[in-house]
């Protein structure tokens, strides 16, 4: 996770209703701020008070909040809205000239995607994440990292695919059994994309606690070592045959098996005569007619 955060460019945090991503966004912002960077936040979904909640004073002093939340569509006509609306605010961030490494956070990119045309938004994101050179010239370009919160369920595959192709890293949030996980797909130039799954939790002070594996409850507890028990001991019936029993079994002829002895016994006329005889005493009412009673049928 640290390497993903450290690299410059566009980072998409894709969250869902069940696994929200704003706390991870705030944790990454806190990390950047503690490294000495300035952090610009374009806040569209929550108020500035709610967003700054949880940061301590040293981090809060490094956060510069551009408030689109209060009046995004200029309904109040009070003049407090940012000039140019949300797109103007985004483009203004591209033109900022303060020196030093900078992190820009968009909360959220979904809000911008619902209100701005996708091509204009993609162009603005490209301009934002490209490395700027300082206006004085001569000094090397400073890396710009853009962290974007994106709610997956709100957009179709087209806009999601377009934004994915712009991103240097994507972090897809999910989890199991109350434990959050981040599936990180990172694309570095001229290298294969790498995938990695990281289990984590966000502590109340918005620091990131990385965990090694899935929650312990899902792993079976290792059994204390017991000698294997022989189930065939102490049985009331016999599973094995002794030698004499096996010999008797093998020499048994089966009733329907036609062996050569049986064949000879059938061929030789046995000592017994045909014993099957039928003795019949006709009754007074019996009709001993030898004709076939079915002869008169024309079948």
């Amino acid at each position: 996770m640290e390497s993903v955060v450290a690299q410059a460019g566009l980072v998409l945090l894709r969250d869902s209703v069940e696994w929200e991503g704003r706390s991870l966004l705030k944790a990454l912002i806190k990390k950047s701020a503690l490294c000495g960077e300035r952090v610009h936040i374009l806040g569209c979904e929550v108020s500035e008070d709610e967003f700054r909640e949880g940061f301590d004073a040293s981090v809060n002093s490094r956060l510069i909040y551009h408030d689109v939340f209060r009046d995004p569509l200029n309904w109040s006509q009070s003049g407090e809205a940012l000039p140019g609306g949300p797109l103007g605010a985004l483009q203004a961030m591209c033109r900022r000239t303060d020196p030093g490494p900078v992190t820009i956070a968009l909360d959220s990119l979904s809000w911008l995607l619902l209100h701005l045309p996708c091509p204009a938004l993609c162009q603005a994101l490209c301009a934002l994440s490209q490395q700027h050179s300082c206006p004085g010239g001569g000094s090397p370009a400073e890396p710009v990292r853009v962290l974007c919160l994106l709610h997956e369920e709100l957009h179709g595959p087209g806009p999601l695919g377009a934004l994915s192709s712009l991103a240097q890293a994507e972090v897809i949030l999910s989890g199991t059994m109350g434990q959050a996980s981040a599936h990180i797909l990172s694309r570095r130039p001229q290298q294969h994309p790498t995938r990695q799954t990281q289990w984590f939790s966000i502590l109340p002070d918005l620091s990131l606690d990385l965990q090694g594996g899935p929650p312990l409850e899902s792993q079976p507890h290792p059994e204390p070592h017991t000698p294997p028990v022989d189930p065939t001991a102490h049985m009331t019936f016999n599973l094995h045959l002794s030698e004499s029993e096996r010999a008797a079994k093998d020499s048994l002829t089966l009733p329907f098996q036609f062996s050569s002895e049986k064949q000879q016994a059938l061929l030789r006329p046995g000592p017994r005569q045909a014993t099957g005889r039928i003795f019949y005493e006709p009754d007074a009412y019996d009709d001993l007619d030898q004709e076939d009673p079915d002869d008169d049928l024309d079948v």
Partner: protein
Amino acid sequence: MYPELNNLLNTTPDRAEQGKLTLLCDAKTDGSFLVHHFLSFYLKANCKVCFVALVQSFSHYNIVGRKLGVSLTAARECGQLVFLEGLKSSVDVFFRAQAEPHPLQFLREADVGNLQPLYEFIREALKPMEDGQAAWRYPVLLVDDLSVLLSLGLGAVAVLDFMHYCRVAVCWEQKGNIVALVHDSGDAEDEENDILLNGLSHQSHLILRAEGLATGFCRDVHGQLKILWRTPSQPAAQRDRSLTYQYKIQDKSVSFFAKGMSPAVL
């Protein structure tokens, strides 16, 4: 209000949280019992309530409210309740000349409208009193329901913008609460409704989802309620993020029980 539901949500009228958006949604069942619960809950909590009722008449809510122990007529007369009866006042848009824009002005507009007049109406209804005396504790906005606005021709983004401005005015400026009902179309391919439901889900602090049973209608168990807390104020380890209960709606109350533990079955 239903005391059992209060226990599940771990809240009472006296110590309810402020500045929160609660989303009610129902799928394959009728979730309006949750609307009646929150209406009586906030009236009993002595809050100023603005109820945008687009689905049923005033007398319907009044009759159910009386069973739950609140009188909407009395609340409206003393100024605690501001009731926008959508069914009646939508007719006014067409047949009466209005000096100012009507809250449901979008019904008249030919092109894609927005809900700014409705937002202005709500903001006016819930603004704090000028004399500085706080007669009521905090403002509450109740909407029943938002899916009707989609059926009336508005886009999902327009409804989301309306809810955004309501959150600014009610939740952020005045530390009040919002409760809104959205229907979940479920299998029906309704993209606009899905955008509205998911968009609001991401902005909500508490989601109550009433679902019909997967096996169909049952006389003793009317449905299943899923409770999801999205931004818990306490660390996640100390508070269950999601609970599921089954329920049975009776005449004056709703009883909740764990899955499979209906008294009729045991």
